[in-house]
């Protein structure tokens, strides 16, 4: 029984003690809490924005101030934008050597096992501490292939400046929704990745985000361009220590997938339980290209996250695989959006959710098949597991089909662990807890095996749910 004990799935809360270590807030520079043109301008000055970016921020701020909050979804009453410090930058510049990162910040990452993870199997790590990228490193051989992996600020001033300008917030315009506008005004930090034509990266790139200052917002921007016939696997992990003041994460991810290129974008999100995670992620896929989203959502107080795939080119495809685990006090409203805008495109959405101890999981999705997207296929399957009656689980999918040459299938199931299944496993000697665990991990297994767990040492700490496949 011992080996099983060690690896067993607990249907417990995720142990976050190691993430809840708070560092002393010792920031070099903090702007006022509210949001005015002056503050936004101050950000521009501080970051030495090019003129177009300065104007872009101001325009986004106007959009932000004009736009109402969304009329759907979870309550955002706990958020008070007027009291959120939007920009906190730790006392350090960029560093490409781990040794040069300040000790307290380094300690935090060491505790989370980031450099180890890099040493083990990562091609590159970008760690963002509050609003600035403090550490960036790409293995030499990856660089030699012409792959660019750098922070957004450097990219904005370097040889790729024009490429950034051409793509920045073109896929997610600030007018998309209020938090996209906010992002446009105050974004800072994030990663830029460029994979040239034909380059297939065999090892994944990873970035790591972490919020430390209480009440700080994180507005990182991730821009990835994968050229024709190229391949990239990008892993994003998020975590933050717990504070009493509401934290806001309104990042933005824009992915451009070229012809016959493939991008796999994996996210392990474990923000602390006071986080409002209102992130916007979108991918534009050209002819024959593919975007694969893998998403594990465990943290946050409130999450609204619906990675969107725009299948622009003929034969483009998308897969979304997601798991959400909501415990006490959490409302995790997750899902996916797909727009089929060209013929022969295909999408597959497969999600699982687990609600426990009063947590709420909401699956929300939209699949749109435009009149142009003849012979397209879409299949959606979502399964929800309720572990008790204090919890909630809602499924809100919408399909909009505008031609008759497409096939759309949808399946949703909601339920609990069956008593007979538990009894059956117990007749083979398993305790009730182990039986429940085995069923929950079995439930999550098809999704869990898609998570890039081998790569992030941290994952095992993030999820006490044992999904490593040792019993799968």
């Amino acid at each position: 029984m011992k080996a099983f004990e060690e690896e067993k799935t607990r249907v417990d809360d995720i142990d976050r003690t190691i993430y809840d270590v708070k560092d002393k807030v010792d920031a070099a520079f903090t702007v006022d809490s509210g949001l005015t043109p002056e503050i936004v301008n101050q950000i521009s000055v501080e970051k030495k924005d090019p003129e177009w970016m300065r104007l872009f921020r101001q325009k986004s701020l106007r959009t932000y101030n004009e736009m109402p909050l969304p009329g759907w979804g979870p309550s955002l009453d706990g958020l008070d934008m007027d009291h959120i410090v939007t920009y906190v930058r730790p006392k350090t510049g960029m560093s490409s050597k781990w040794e040069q990162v300040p000790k307290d910040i380094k300690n935090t990452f060491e505790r989370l096992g980031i450099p180890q993870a890099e040493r083990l199997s990562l091609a590159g790590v970008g760690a963002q501490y509050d609003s600035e990228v403090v550490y960036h490193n790409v293995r030499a051989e990856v660089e030699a292939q012409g792959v660019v992996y750098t922070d957004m600020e450097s990219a904005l001033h370097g040889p790729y400046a024009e490429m950034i300008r051409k793509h920045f917030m073109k896929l997610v315009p600030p007018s998309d929704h209020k938090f996209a506008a906010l992002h446009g005004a105050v974004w800072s930090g994030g990663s830029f990745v460029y994979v040239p034509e034909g380059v297939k990266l065999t090892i994944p790139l990873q970035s790591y985000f972490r919020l430390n200052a209480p009440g700080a917002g994180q507005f990182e921007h991730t821009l990835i361009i994968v050229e024709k016939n190229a391949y990239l696997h990008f892993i994003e992990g998020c975590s933050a220590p717990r504070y009493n003041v509401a934290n806001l994460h309104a990042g933005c991810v824009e992915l451009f997938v070229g012809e016959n290129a493939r991008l796999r974008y994996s996210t392990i999100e474990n923000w602390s339980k006071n986080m409002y995670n209102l992130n916007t992620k979108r991918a534009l896929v050209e002819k024959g290209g593919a975007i694969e989203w893998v998403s594990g959502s465990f943290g946050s107080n409130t999450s609204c996250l619906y990675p969107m795939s725009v299948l622009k080119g003929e034969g483009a495809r998308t897969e979304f695989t997601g798991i959400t685990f909501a415990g006490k006090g959490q409302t995790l409203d997750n899902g996916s959006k797909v727009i089929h805008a060209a013929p022969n495109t295909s999408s597959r959405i497969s999600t699982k959710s687990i609600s426990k101890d009063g947590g709420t999981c909401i699956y929300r999705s939209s699949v749109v098949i435009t009149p142009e997207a003849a012979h397209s296929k879409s299949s959606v399957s979502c399964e929800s597991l309720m572990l008790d009656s204090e919890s909630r689980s809602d499924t809100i999918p919408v399909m909009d089909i505008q031609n008759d040459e497409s096939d759309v299938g949808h399946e949703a199931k909601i339920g609990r662990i069956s008593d007979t299944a538990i009894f059956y496993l117990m007749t083979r000697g398993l305790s009730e807890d182990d039986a429940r665990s085995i069923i929950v991990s079995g439930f999550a297994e098809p999704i869990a095996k898609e998570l890039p767990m081998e790569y992030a040492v941290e994952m095992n700490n993030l999820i006490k749910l044992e999904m490593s496949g040792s019993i799968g």
Partner: protein
Amino acid sequence: MSHELLKVENLQVGVEDKVILDKLNLTIRSGETHVLMGPNGAGKSTLGNAIMGHPQYNICQGSIVFDGDDITNESTDVRAKKGIFLSFQNPEEVPGIALGNFLRVSREAVTGEAPRILKFQKEMRGLMDSLEIDQEYASRYLNVGFSGGEKKKSEILQMLMLNPKLAILDETDSGLDVDAVKVVSKGIRQFRSDKNSLLIITHNAKILEGLKVDYVHVLVNGTIVHTGGSSLIQEINEKGFQFFEAGGVRN
């Protein structure tokens, strides 16, 4: 010397507010093979479930003693660890756990120690071959998408791997074709030894072929109305259960 392995005394079992078994007595000694027969709805499966401790079946009266310990109020897994095995009529499908890994996990749960992997694999492969189960099934999710026959073979495989002191086989032959019944009864014969006991719940004499049956019990309306030797099987086949229901034979 054989000893009393299972002793069921004056058992009354109810589901919700309905009494299903009443005043039931049954003793099984180690090394014995018992057959339980009876018409549909008599409570045969209930007895198996009650011995295994299914939470839906309430024991209102009486006791179940196994290997000298009163297990009337024990949880199902404790009973399994003590050496009772129940093969299900409709084995549950459990997605996400491969059959092979599940066997390893449950072997460890029952024996309390981790099996040596290579030895375990060899043993499992051998048994799968003898039960005519494709090796590929070891990596398939437990019972998911198995046909009726495959599910029953998977139950027999689990029984052989867990090697319980008492195996209760609930209608293991139902819904099987002739060939599958042969394989299953071969598995049962393989299991049978001086140390192991069997309680076979069945309608079908076929599965008992080649098996030395010590006792046959007839369960009618929630209680055992008649117990006899293996010749009783033939008698039931000829006369049917009505004969016993009418009280045609007395103990």
